[in-house]
């Protein structure tokens, strides 16, 4: 029983990061109709920037964290401006291929700059595990889970009350109407990518001590898609629930079936959801019958 509880808690920690990753993807998709395949690569770049500042330059946590986020924001804006904005009017599938090309470029760039070998990232917090009612958690895990939950709450408040957040919601609903109301759609596109950069940047730096830093670590976050699809790629609440759900299911499958199944299970879930209920687990049906 205790072991099950331990697994569920572990899954929840993992699921929180998936959910944040998926939230960024959903926010981008809703506003700009782009599926950002390079999401995991942004996480990887954040981890590498954090690594450079923290280990290579030996700075303390706060400045390296802030500067790494700054770099990721800059990178996201560059991607948005250089690769995606010229293709705004292109057919939908070109977006997905463009972000695929961005993925290849970022991975290759990381390999050029930092090399292909994995690096260990020293933990920010003490290594001593906490013991809460028999469940062992590291400080790091608590920080990851706490940050994910705080980010989710902040995101909701942001969309509900902040001016820019409301603008983003308007752009998601109707681009023409939004621009008639005096909202600059182009500016909102940039803001959306900045928002995503903050989300994935934080995840990347927080997870780096746990996973290590290497050029293909972005592939781990391909599961962000599974989560985003669980929410139908439109529902923020759906992505959060889906994220925790996937994290738990995956951890349980990894323990009770086999560690191989851990990865396969999430993709089987993805295909099943896409085929059975493409609008996601939590959305209303909007498919067109032909």
């Amino acid at each position, binding site marked *: 029983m205790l072991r099950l509880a331990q697994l569920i808690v572990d899954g929840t920690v993992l699921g929180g990061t998936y959910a944040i990753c998926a939230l960024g993807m959903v926010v981008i998709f809703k506003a700009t109709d782009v599926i950002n395949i390079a999401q995991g690569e942004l996480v990887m770049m954040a981890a590498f920037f954090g690594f450079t500042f923290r280990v290579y330059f030996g700075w303390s946590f706060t400045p390296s964290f802030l500067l790494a986020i700054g770099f990721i924001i800059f990178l996201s804006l560059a991607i948005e401006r250089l690769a995606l904005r010229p*293709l705004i009017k292109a057919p939908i599938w070109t977006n997905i*291929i463009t972000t695929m*090309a*961005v993925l*290849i470029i970022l991975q*290759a760039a990381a390999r*050029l700059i930092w090399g292909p070998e994995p690096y260990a990232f020293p933990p920010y917090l003490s290594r001593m595990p906490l013991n809460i009612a028999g469940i062992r958690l590291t400080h790091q895990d608590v920080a990851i889970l706490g940050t994910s939950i705080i980010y989710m709450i902040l995101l909701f408040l942001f969309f509900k009350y902040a001016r820019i957040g409301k603008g983003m919601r308007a752009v998601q609903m109707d681009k023409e109407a939004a621009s008639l109301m005096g909202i600059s759609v182009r500016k909102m596109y940039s803001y959306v990518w900045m928002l995503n950069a903050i989300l994935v940047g934080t995840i990347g730096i927080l997870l780096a001590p746990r996973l290590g830093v290497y050029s293909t670590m972005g592939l781990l976050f391909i599961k962000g898609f599974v989560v985003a699809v669980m929410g139908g*790629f439109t529902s923020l609440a759906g992505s959060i629930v889906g994220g925790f759900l996937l994290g738990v299911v995956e951890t349980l499958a990894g323990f009770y079936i086999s560690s191989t199944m851990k990865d396969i299970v999430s993709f089987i879930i993805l295909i099943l959801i*896409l085929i059975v209920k493409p609008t996601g687990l939590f959305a209303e049906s909007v498919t067109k019958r032909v």
Partner: protein
Amino acid sequence: MIYIISLVLVYSIAAVGLDILMGYSGQVCFGQAGFVAVGAYTTAFLVKNGFSYWVSLPIGGIVAALTGLMIGLPAIRIRGHYLALATMSFAYIIHLILVHWESVTGGPRGLIAARPSWPFSFEKDKYFYFVIIFIVIPLFIVARNIVKSKYGRAFLAIQKDEIVSKSMGINLTIYKTLAFIVCSFYAGVAGGLYGPLIGFLDPLSFTILDSALYIMMIVLGGRGTLVGAFIGAAFFAILPEVLREAKKWQELAFGLTFICFLIFMPNGVMGFIRRYQVSFVEKIREMEFLRHYFEEK
């Protein structure tokens, strides 16, 4: 040299198949490398277990086509982004199976793919090249005929508008699944040729990035033009050889070229050629019109 030409031809088989699916029927498939892997591993596995290569190759193609049917039949309900994600996760599952099902695929250690030894040994590249030519030409003719026949026109109609084509009496289920089957069959045959050409299969040559590579081929060559698939395949087979000295920069070059193509030449090389062809013909027409004009005067 002959090896590179063989590689171009093998890539172009898979690219032609993908072109029928993406360029004509308008469905997005991010899992072409998965189908190629199914064909390649089936063929190599059968050859390893004593079957003749000439029997294994078509079986590899058929098994890949069945996989295509398995993916294509449920996939008729979804389109666009969702189809791209579904096929992508399919390719990912195939990749994971290749890595973990060690008793059949050899896992990360890979699987040796032998070249046929009947009627005589094809160990030399230039002999195996003729095998590839012998298979590429009929496949290309068949693809061209599919595209020019009522099937090709139905595919184009589906790409333009599904509702209209349905009301014109095109059975969407059959045609969309058919496009998937053709695409995956071509991919399977390409895989069956790829294995013996390289001599060795390992899961790292069938990742999602390789699926993206096939899409890049047809986009670069020009979507919906079968010849474009050859141009794209040639580009992506020759570029690594050119950049052999600067191996590190290779992927970066791939990605950057590709984004440039999408932005500045979205219809690919063939689209570029066609545009200038049209304007050239128009110029001649204009001149004739002028000549008329002057003669009348």
